[in-house]
């Protein structure tokens, strides 16, 4: 797997609140930017994976692929989509697969769900009978367990928000640009879904993203800085539901991590930067633990001491993540990983950024509250 496939191009539109553009238009813009970066015409795309679920893109976008898939495993979809693209190329079904995302919830466009006003208000299943609504309520159940088991505090979760806002404050194009916060700001922000305050939560943004996936040699012939896919893996937390401990695990990360790191032939010390799926502050703490950057239960003190900062043990979510950057589902982290690996992160560029760990997380079920987890390891050398 390592180095055999690459992301040849990344197209990212403006990401932000109330951009006033439809989701489809944003996807078209993102594809156009990716094609321009790769120096390709749109007929080069022979595989289309829509990281969501919508049926009319190909006509509107003027694409003519051999297949068009709607892939949906929530926030794990971008990494899963890249993995599916590799699979289709390996199976001889395509040579240049576009993995595309675009939503505009703050402008009234959530694909296939025109009644939904916010991603954060999504709710279904038996738990909705009891007033559960939104991803915050389901993640709060994990946070409460972590606080109960390890004494993790609101101020420690706040440290994640403050550090990530620090990254975003220096990064143009993020929602947090120019707006640093303090721990006091975090503590003063209103309680939304206990234990999450407003500054523990990400918010919806509009935007489009497209990546072009192909064989590494093809990518090298097209662009100066292909980003290599070194390894990938997935896990589903349903295993921990069956064991009776789903809430003590943010995700079932162990199998995803094991497979991805084995494919990449690396260990944790080789990772220069982590981009972890972070709809809520607790997500960063629990993933830093599950990946092994810090022992289980020690994630709170770790972030409070700046372990996730630019000079810390593992710089994490270096453009602000979803919390302070923008919410492009699992693409938020993949975009920043690619920028760091290409040396295009501007003032936020890390001194050494050759291998990046990205995670995705999504598609929970109502009763069991378990998600898919995706691990994707990217590098700037094959």
């Amino acid at each position, binding site marked *: 797997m390592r180095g055999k496939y690459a992301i040849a191009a990344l197209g990212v539109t403006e990401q932000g609140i109330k951009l006033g553009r439809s989701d489809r238009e944003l996807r078209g813009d993102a594809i156009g930017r990716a094609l321009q970066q790769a120096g390709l015409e749109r007929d080069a795309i022979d595989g289309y994976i829509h990281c969501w679920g919508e049926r009319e893109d190909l006509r509107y976008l003027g694409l003519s692929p051999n297949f068009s898939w709607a892939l949906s495993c929530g926030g794990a979809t971008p990494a899963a989509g890249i993995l599916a693209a590799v699979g289709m190329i390996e199976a001889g079904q395509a040579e240049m697969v576009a993995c595309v995302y675009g939503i505009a919830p703050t402008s009234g466009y959530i694909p296939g769900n025109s009644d939904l006003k*916010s991603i*954060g*208000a999504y*709710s*279904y*299943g*038996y*738990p*909705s*009978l*009891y*007033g*559960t*609504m*939104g991803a*915050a*309520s389901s993640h*709060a*159940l*994990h946070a*409460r*367990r972590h606080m*109960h088991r390890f004494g993790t505090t609101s101020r420690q979760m706040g440290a994640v928000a403050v550090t990530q806002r620090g990254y975003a404050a220096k990064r143009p194009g993020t929602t947090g640009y120019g707006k640093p916060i303090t721990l006091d700001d975090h503590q003063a922000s*209103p*309680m*939304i*879904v*206990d*234990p999450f305050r407003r500054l523990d939560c990400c918010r919806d943004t509009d935007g489009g993203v497209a990546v072009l996936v192909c064989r590494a040699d093809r990518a090298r012939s097209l662009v100066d800085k292909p980003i290599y896919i070194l390894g990938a893996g997935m896990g589903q937390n349903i295993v921990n539901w*069956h064991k*009776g401990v*789903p*809430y003590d695990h943010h995700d079932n990360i162990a199998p995803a991590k094991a497979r991805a790191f084995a494919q990449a032939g690396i260990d944790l010390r080789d990772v220069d930067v982590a981009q972890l799926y972070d709809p809520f502050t607790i997500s960063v703490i629990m993933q830093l633990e599950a990946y092994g950057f810090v022992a289980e239960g020690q994630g709170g003190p770790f972030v409070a001491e700046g372990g996730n900062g630019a000079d810390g043990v593992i710089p994490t979510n270096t453009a602000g993540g979803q919390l302070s950057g923008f919410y492009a589902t699992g693409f938020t982290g993949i975009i920043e990983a690619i920028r760091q690996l290409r040396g295009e992160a501007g003032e936020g560029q890390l001194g050494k950024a050759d291998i990046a760990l990205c995670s995705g997380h999504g598609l929970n079920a*109502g*009763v*069991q*509250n378990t998600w898919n987890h995706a691990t994707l390891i990217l590098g700037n050398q094959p």
Partner: protein
Amino acid sequence: MTIPDVDLAVIKRLSGDYLDLPFWEGTARHELRLHGCALCGRKYWPASQCVEHGDAQMEWAPANGGGIVHTYTIMYHAYAPQMAARVPFCVAVVQLDEGPFFHTNILDCPIEDIHVGLRVEVRFQLDDSTGLTLPMFVPADAVKSKT
């Protein structure tokens, strides 16, 4: 007591199906039922196949109605207009004495008294909007003090 009818269409809208009807017909009679594996006795909710014995027969049987708060959250933000009059309220996941988890509301308990490990007991409440009888939970102490 008049036993309310259970509408399958409501169950389907909640991502359930007819396999769950015995549960909701049970709550309508103020009985909390769990789905159990006929082979090993492991209990499940909602309707499931046994993770150890997938092809074994499953049977609905009454639970004892007790459990402990495994985790919980307090909803302060009204994500939808209909929530505005209700917040703040507690959504908890109770681990029933037989093992399964159950999302619920904790009633008759000040928010500041709710904690992980709180012992609770079921109390049934008719939900007007769905016609379902919902298992709610109250602190076990509150039940004792009333009896």
